[in-house]
């Protein structure tokens, strides 16, 4: 056992921090730290900057243009980026679909898609969920039928984050309606294709990131199939496996806790800082306890060799990480006093100037808190995660 982080890994932290200090544009950081949904234009700019530094894909192997970093280094990188308020990078392209592409796709698709993802020219939507296929994802019904060198796609996706601004939607579609999981394929669909319509869904933070996507006889070239037909479910599971060590969102939780600390020091009551009011410091300390425990469970997951009778880390981390995000948010809203109750409209620009009322750290806090009610729902609802823990590990 060795409980220290390797000095070489710590050196990377210093390097990343310095890079962020000099290369992260202030306007991007302001939006990134605000709690409002990220703007696609910001994400594109930031991805380009990272690409030029050679850090376009922290989680990919070097042969595809990635950094080849260990899980731990990726985590250090994510943590520094989050703390600096960098825009979130393209989760779909980098984390979910990229690995599927370099592992399973044809060399033609690899050459077409991977460099574009790296350069920030190809952002992905994740078209998995459907109205009747949420927790029971395998019940999806969107149909792709072969017609010469095209698939004809009909059906509907829902909750598709960023469908309105992405360049491609990675969809799970049914290519064999007879089989359940075995009849599912991964198809890349251009959201501009004729026959696609996109309807916005506004979330309870009054923000816009979610969509319904309707497919009406949409023609998709057969070349856009990822890997083999009817293997989509296997790939999707592999993708989710990639996620397992990061599902507590420790970097995001750290940034949120840092923001809470700032607010309880800057907000005052009768000459005292809010942190000095009864109970506040204890509650922040409790959040710190829970965050640190999660951090170290994450470190265990990150450094564990794959295989073996591993804990279902992803589920353990997802349950508590999402709950923590909500608890930090709730306390931050309270710390803001009345400003936590105001509706600050989601701005269309990244630089947020004159707000009608309140301090500059208030806008976005409550919008994010509201949106994060979904943290215990998206990415596999917590009830489903608990069932996974009970069944797969405890064998109940």
């Amino acid at each position: 056992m060795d409980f220290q982080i390797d000095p070489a890994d710590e050196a990377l932290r210093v390097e990343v921090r310095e890079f962020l200090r000099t290369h992260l544009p202030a306007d991007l950081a302001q939006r990134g730290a605000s709690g409002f949904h990220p703007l696609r234009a910001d994400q594109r700019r930031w991805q380009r900057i990272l690409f030029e530094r050679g850090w376009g894909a922290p989680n990919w192997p070097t042969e595809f243009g990635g950094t080849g970093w260990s899980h731990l280094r990726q985590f250090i990188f994510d943590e520094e980026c989050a703390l600096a308020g960098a825009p979130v990078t393209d989760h779909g392209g980098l984390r979910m679909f990229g690995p599927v592409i370099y592992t399973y796709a044809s060399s033609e698709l690899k050459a077409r898609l991977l460099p574009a993802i790296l350069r920030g020219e190809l952002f992905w939507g994740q078209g998995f969920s459907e109205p009747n296929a949420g927790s029971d994802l395998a019940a999806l019904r969107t149909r792709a039928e072969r017609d010469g060198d095209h698939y004809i796609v009909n059906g509907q996706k829902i909750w598709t984050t960023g469908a309105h601004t992405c360049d491609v939607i990675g969809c799970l579609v049914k290519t064999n309606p007879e089989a359940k999981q075995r009849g599912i394929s991964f198809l890349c669909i251009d959201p501009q294709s004729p026959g696609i319509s996109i309807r916005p869904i506004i979330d309870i933070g009054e923000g816009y990131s979610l969509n319904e996507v309707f497919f009406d006889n949409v023609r998709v070239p057969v070349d856009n199939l990822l890997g083999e037909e009817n293997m989509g479910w296997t790939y999707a599971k592999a993708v989710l496996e990639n996620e397992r060590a990061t599902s507590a969102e420790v970097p995001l939780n750290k940034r949120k806790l840092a923001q809470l600390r700032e607010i309880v020091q800057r907000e005052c009551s009768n000459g005292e800082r809010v942190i000095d009011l009864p109970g506040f410091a204890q509650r922040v300390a409790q959040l710190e306890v829970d965050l640190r425990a999660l951090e170290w469970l994450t470190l265990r997951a990150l450094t564990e060799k794959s295989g073996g009778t591993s804990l279902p880390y992803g589920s353990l981390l997802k349950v508590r990480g999402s709950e923590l995000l909500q608890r930090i948010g709730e306390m931050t809203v309270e710390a803001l006093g009345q400003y936590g109750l105001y509706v600050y409209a989601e701005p269309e620009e990244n630089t947020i100037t004159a707000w009608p009322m309140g301090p500059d750290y208030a806008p976005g806090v409550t919008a994010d808190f509201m949106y994060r009610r979904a943290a215990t729902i998206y990415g596999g609802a917590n009830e489903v995660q608990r069932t996974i823990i009970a069944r797969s590990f405890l064998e109940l």
Partner: protein
Amino acid sequence: MNFNLTEEQHMLSDSVRRFLENECGLATGRDNKSSDQWAKIAELGWLAIPLPESVGGLGGGAVETTLIMEEFGRVLAVEPFCAIGVVAAQLILAADSRQAEVLLPQLIAGNFRPIVAHHEHEARGVIEHVSLQANAHGDKWLLSGRKSLVVGANAANRFIVSARTDGDLRDRAGITLFSIACNAPGLQQNNIRLIDNRWAAELIFDNVEVSAMNVLGEVGEGYRAIDHAYAHGLLAQCAEAVGVMEQALWITRDYIKTRKQFGVALNTFQALQHRMAEMLIELELARSVVYRSLAFIDAPTDERNAALSLAKIKIGQAVRFVCGQAIQLHGGIGVTEEYSIGHYFKRAMTIENELGSSHFHLAQLADLELRKSVAWVRE
């Protein structure tokens, strides 16, 4: 003891519910026009019900107020019944019995819509926190400072403002109440929508002139009336929370009976059955502390305020749990603005963070515990 409603009280609940379900509700708050439902609400007599006959009321009391407020919570109505019919009415009643006889009949008729401007940002639940200054200037007063989270200000045709005429920031003595026109020169009103679709305002006073005639009650003696009014407001809000929770619970119950995943309705999953059972437990505990507060509402102020703090703590915890889990059990649909259940959670959050959060009130009770223990050591 008897926790059953009388026939009249049942009828009141039913008629309030019917009216609110048909005429008010979620969507009505998005723009900041004052509600045209107010005349109807006055006509229905709800404003008269809790007030004494001496001011033109029907002689009901806090019980009737809680019944009405529970129905407001159920439909998430945004009409400022609590702000005008409870807080302002009780403030006037307690502050100045002579003026009450003149003003409250007009309030009951719906023509007089006073909104109390008392809260200031740094108060954080402390009622005696008043920094807004009133300086004597001949036979007039000049008011300068800020009030915020003045809920319902968009519906007001008069503000009742608490101002400091003497003493330090958190002294109970030296607070005076002034009645002010909404368009008084020097008064700036910035409206803002709250997350639960009610509207509030920040009021900025820059040497606003008020004549001595418009002092409510005695100079420097306003605290007692504010404390009384806020106590009734807090109780009303707790009752509202019960309505919010109850409706959120049943909406969720109905939803999970119809939503199917894995080939079965969600309600067949024991994990969700247990969650809903927990929600019901919290709801009924919350309702019980509202009843308990009703038992204390006319008690000496220390006892009354302790009971109200206790209620606010339990209510704040329960309403966040019940409404948060109501979203959770809905899945994705629960976090959409278009569907109802998220709005119950948003009202829950405003209830929790108005009039002192549950953590603020817990600190109040903790303080009482310390004082008790000091007394015990002395004995």
